[in-house]
């Protein structure tokens, strides 16, 4: 049995290698010397062969491909393939992205295989064993975790934390791993569906006025639409107002909806859930108004005000 210190499970979406997979290579690089052994990256599924070449150009020791009897992601099959990889390589640490697909198969695998487990980590180090950091309670607290008595630990890593690895000086070898699994697909793919674009494209707006949970009454929404119009801004929203059905999903900013890069992003009553921040942190200038001085949005905003959003809205109306 070979000893692979770190095993990375790469991810594709509709045939494309996802950036977070490369970030995992960077994360692995940062600890592999302390973990010991090598870095392997595995591509599971029908796209495995097509992304193996791309992965081999990065600083890893080996790229493994695993075929599965499914044309699409399927949690039970992915868990079985990952289990076979762990049996083959005996890694101390397994890394996947904290993504919707990983949320499907990674905890399932950790549960059935008795792995150490932590999700959505933002930092890791290895001294006599793994320690990780993750953010909890709406990003307001930092939890540090350890994994006593676990020979193999599986963690899902928050996208956008570790950055991209440099290209390797020599290409990694590629190996196919045949998996003889009795696991059958439990779900059947029907289709991919894209959300409707709507009349307004917030991804091309220069100035977004974005409202969030601080707006607690649907009757207040038109007021902010009017304020946006008077300021020359386009109205957008964080998730809660869309979940409530007060605004169409085409106006949503966040991981599952739109990623925006306006020159100015004015956030009124948005606390800054991680999924929201992923959709707007690349805005040129971020201004946030929130009544909670500990709101995580102040961690990414350039300008902030701890204030009642309705009082600020009223003052803006008077000036606009």
């Amino acid at each position: 049995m070979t000893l692979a210190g770190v095993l990375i499970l790469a991810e594709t979406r509709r045939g494309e290698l996802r950036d977070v997979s490369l970030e995992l290579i960077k994360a692995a690089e940062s600890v592999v010397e302390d973990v010991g052994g090598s870095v392997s990256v595995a591509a599971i599924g029908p796209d495995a062969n097509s992304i193996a070449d791309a992965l081999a150009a990065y600083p890893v020791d080996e790229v493994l491909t695993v075929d599965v009897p499914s044309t699409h992601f399927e949690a039970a099959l992915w868990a079985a393939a990952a289990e076979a990889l762990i049996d083959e390589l005996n890694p101390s640490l397994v890394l996947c992205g904290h993504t919707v697909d990983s949320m499907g198969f990674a905890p399932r695998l950790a549960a059935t295989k008795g792995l150490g487990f932590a999700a959505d980590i933002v930092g890791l180090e290895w001294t006599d064993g793994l320690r990780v950091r993750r953010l909890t309670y709406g990003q307001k607290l930092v939890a540090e975790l350890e994994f006593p008595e676990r020979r193999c630990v599986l963690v899902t890593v928050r996208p956008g934390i570790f950055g991209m690895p440099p290209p390797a000086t020599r290409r990694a070898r590629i190996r196919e791993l045949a998996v003889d699994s009795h696991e059958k697909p439990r779900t059947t793919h029907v289709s991919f569906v894209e959300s409707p674009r709507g009349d307004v494209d917030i991804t091309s707006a220069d100035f977004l006025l974005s409202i969030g949970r601080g707006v607690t009454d649907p009757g207040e929404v038109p007021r902010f639409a009017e304020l946006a119009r008077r300021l020359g801004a386009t109205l957008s929203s964080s998730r809660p107002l869309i979940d409530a059905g007060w605004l169409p999903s085409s106006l949503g900013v966040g991981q599952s909806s739109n990623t925006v890069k306006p020159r100015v992003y004015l956030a009124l009553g948005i606390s800054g859930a991680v999924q929201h921040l992923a959709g707007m942190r690349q805005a040129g200038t971020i201004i946030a108004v929130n009544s909670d001085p500990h709101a995580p949005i102040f961690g990414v905003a350039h300008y902030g005000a701890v204030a009642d959003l309705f009082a600020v809205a009223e003052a803006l109306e008077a000036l606009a």
Partner: protein
Amino acid sequence: MRIAVLVKQVAVLDDELELLDGGRGVDPDCAELEVNEWDAFALEAALILRDSMAEGSHEVLVVTMGDERAEECVRSCLAKGADRGIRIWDDALAEADVLAVARVLAATLAGEAVDLILCGAQSSDEASGATGSAVAGFLELAHVAVVKQIGFDGSVLTVSRELEGRVAEVVTLEPPALLTVQTGIAPLRHATLREIKRAREKPLEVKGLLDVGLDASTVAGVAGSRLVSLTHPETGERAQMLGGDSHAVAARILEIVHDRMAG
């Protein structure tokens, strides 16, 4: 059809969070508590599904792991229309990690012959997004994570799982199955005073670890991690704060906007 909904009581995040001595957790006595938002949507989906079915015996069962305080969380679900509840607790579970919690919930459900298990895609406090998928693993059930639409024709479930970047994937599967539910799956209902009163009469069973065939050491052995510390983060780079009253704040905002939009 019997549908189980897994719910968790969490601290309201708008509150100032007080840490227990030694950073072992958040002090629940200093926080306002509520049903995890994602679980509230899972309950909503379960109630809609139950009420859409043809005549027959259909039931929504609410299961939570938590101490006496969590009783209120189950009662609020009963008030919204769930039929009965189970609360499972043992003091040994106070520091249970996500896999240990999943093991306890799985054992609790094992005796209930449920056709469908719904739970929130994540909790607002721990935010691991892992409990449901781990429960499905322990129970060897088919499952789909982060679901934003559920349809059932009597034999096949058609669900839409929400992916990143405005895309959803529609898949089908057959019960028994577990689905983790995303927020916004349907508008949330509110319980009326009459329903809240009636909920006090609905059955709420309290169980311990032994009742579900577990003991403290088995649960400890399942744990995937151990909490070393919980701390307030060091304040890193933060926004430049605008002072003054709301008029001063508004005036500065407009200045910044004009400056940036002109540049």
